[in-house]
């Protein structure tokens, strides 16, 4: 793994972590480690996620009923807990994504007012 300077990584906004996890699970059930890796990969390592901080979030998402968990066996023949998206979770992801997009548009609008047209 290439070393990156700490300043290149952006601290994840609390709450948007939920969205990222749900998004990751969209493509099928994954275990905790896999989710961490996916997020890192997809964001080109820009998003710094301490692997440990996933776990509280995973618990919370379970309580909300957006994901379910099941013990299974990984490709390396190791026991791992796999998480999958539920129907409610799917709906939540859609809602969160659109909210985030609105948020981004708003910020962008403020930063580059001349480009709105």
């Amino acid at each position, binding site marked *: 793994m290439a070393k990156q300077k700490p300043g290149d990584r952006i601290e994840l906004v609390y709450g948007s972590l939920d969205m990222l996890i749900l998004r990751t699970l969209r493509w099928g059930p994954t275990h905790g480690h896999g989710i961490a890796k996916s997020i890192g990969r997809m964001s080109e390592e820009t998003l710094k996620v301490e692997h440990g901080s996933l776990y*509280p979030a995973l*618990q919370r998402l379970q309580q909300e*009923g957006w994901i379910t968990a099941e013990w299974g066996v990984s490709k390396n023949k190791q026991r791992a807990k796999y998480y999958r998206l539920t129907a409610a979770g799917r709906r939540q992801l859609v809602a969160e994504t659109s909210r985030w997009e609105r948020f981004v548009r708003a910020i962008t609008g403020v930063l580059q007012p001349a480009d709105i047209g």
Partner: protein
Amino acid sequence: MSWRREVAKFGALFRRPKPADDLEEEIRSHLRMEEQENLESGMPPEEAHYAALRRFGNVTLAQERSREMWGWDSVETLRQDLQFGLRMLRKNPGFTVVAVLTLALGIGANTAIFTLAHLLLNKPVSFPQLDRLMSASVITPGGDERPLAPANYLDLRAQTKSLESIAAYEEWAAGVQGQNGPEEIRGVRVSEGFFATLGVQPTPAQGRVFLDEDHQPGREHVVILSYGLWQREFGGDTHVLGRELRLDGENYEIVGIMPASFQFPLGGQQFWAPLALSSAEKSERAKDILATVGRLKDGATLEGARAEMETVWAQLQRQYPRQNGERQLSVLSLRARLVNEDSRAFVILFLFVAGFALLIVCVNVANLQLSRAGSRRREIAVRVALGATRIRLIRQLLTESVMLAVMSGALGLLLAVWGVSLLRTNLPEQVRRICDLTGLHVDVQAFIFMLFVAVASGVLSGLAPALQGSRMDLRARLETGSGRIVGGGKRLRNIYVISEVVLSVVLLIGAGLMVKGFSALANHHPGLEPQSLLAFHVNLPSSRYVGSRQRATFYEKGLARIKSLPAVQGVAVASGVPYSFYENEVGVISDEHTEVRSDQAPTAMQESITSDYFRVMHIPLLAGRHFDQRDGDGAPAVGIVSESMARRLWPGRAVVGRRVKLLERDADPEWITVVGIAADVRHEVYDRAFRSILYRPMEQAPDNSMDFIVRSFGEPKQLFAMVRSAIGEVDKGEPVTHLQTMAQKITEQASALHMVAALMGLFGLAAIILSAAGMYGVITYSVTERRREIGIRMALGAQRAEVVKMVMREGLLYAVVGGAIGMGLGSFLARLLSSLLYGVQAWDLAVYAGVPVLLLVVSIVATLMPAMRAARVDPMMALRYE
């Protein structure tokens, strides 16, 4: 916080394994996978392992935060706090015992008083839908409340539509033959619909209520027993229905038994009999004898009923101006009628004293906790270092405090149960009069109150120590030696000790003034020499004594027999001797002011007496003559007035020979000629001024309910048995009631107030002892803290005596400051008390001088020991001691 999560959390509480448990395994597997990847990308094994850990972040933190998601934080931490708190309490038995005992006393006392207050104020009686019940009476121009006259009652009953039903009742003290001779038991004569109005009846197996025909004159010899009477006199015999009870010499058939919970009106009624009015009695409009109780119709309000009844009354006033003209109708809810001003005041006084005591206890326990917090500094510091927030610390300390208080509350509840049973049997007569005390026990509401008070005390006594103990100056805590107090603690302790001193001084001043005031009242009986007097009461029922001649014969015989007893100096009969709660106010018109309106006429208390009355009572006659044989029935009406009455009606003029007329409502009253003036005598402990009394000769104004007053040579108590048998010789079925010495009567009247004063005094003393203990603790602590300083001083040449003086100065400073503030506040309390309570003066030298002296003595004692100990400090040890 989404509800979904809460539900999930709640559900998880009961699942095994808990969701958080296999987290550990999951994290381990995560780390393994990361390590594996690292190895595959070429890292050496050890670096792979550590890189994985670094990438993960803080494992413990992740675990904890995940656990937090699932755990019900509050419950978990609460349990932890409680367990820890229990352990701490066990470790400090001295603190625990003192704190628990004082808190238990305070909480217990408050719970007991609450039970009494609750009973007195909220359920003097308990009926279904008590709020729908009302009561009507009249108010005389003098402001007295009186029952209704039968004719008025019947008219109101017929014409008021907003009442579903209304019934009347009249008290009846009947003579029965008890095991030890004749006795008097109290009962009630009730009209039609009485039980239906109240909504009670005997259980079906135990008879019936009265039928309409029972209320016909001649058919009224039936009776319903109270549960208590049934148990006592008939042993709970299940076949008692149909048997007979002999009341006032006549047989009454028992037709029913009321359940144990039924008490009405108040004060231990033993039986109920039907009220049977003859047609003459039904049209009686001048005699006020019938109290009433009514039930509002569904949907009607008290205000509506009141308005309607007042309209009816206004018409009755127009129709019968002489009888009803100056009487106003009063319509109150039954509860309001039964709970009067006096009982409310009494209860509030008690509550105040108990609350005050609890306050003192809380301050003391807070003080104890503060000193204990000092020794827990290290523990707190470690907690802070491990990441505890201030809120968390405060919550922990408060939890411990509340737990301590609740535990004490449980003990306090036991004390309250004991206290309540004590109250039940020992409350003064005045309280029994207004409330049925058999219902006085600790119940669910008292329990809830106890919990509430315990939690409040816990918070109150724990808050400041918690705030103090959780202060986050970490470095100072860990650095300082165990013998030094962190600054602010000292100030708070000072405040506590001073406030304890203030509270106890205030209480002592209040108590002292009350005690002085009440004993002055009780011992101050101008116009009377009670030491050798005794009195008793007889009630001659019309069923056995028909006509005034028969009654007069009874009195003559009674007087003669008692006079013949060896130890008797003199005996007389009067309607009501002083200190026997006798009331009989009538309006009077003097011959000078015949035109005065009846509602503005002066009033006087009317008393019928035998001719020896003043001589027996040692009341001097200031002018004129005593009654004698001239003043018989049919002779010109005469009277003797009290000194105050003479002054009020004929100021500055000769009075003998003047005439007065009583404002009676049934007949045209005759003029009464004044033949003498008697000195004033006080009739009740609470009288602020002498009453106007008009004495009439017994023959001219006979009464069927009279007091005998006897003056003895020597101790009156020795005459009790002989007096009883003397009356028994005259009429063996006639009960002798209220047989007491005059001294006993006076004490009984003042007993309620004596009790409050004694309680206040007790609390005051307890308070000052607690303050002394607090002072002792603080000074001891201060000495320990200043050990080095003392050591240095002594090393530099200070004498032991100087050291002692130095320490005692500190202690006495508390006493002086606290005492000054306390005296100031106390004088406010004094002014309040003297305005509320008759007889209590706002200034009394003994009290205002005595309390500071007591405070001084107590403070000296409290500070002496630590001071002596300070003087024994070895300078070498002190300087070395860290």
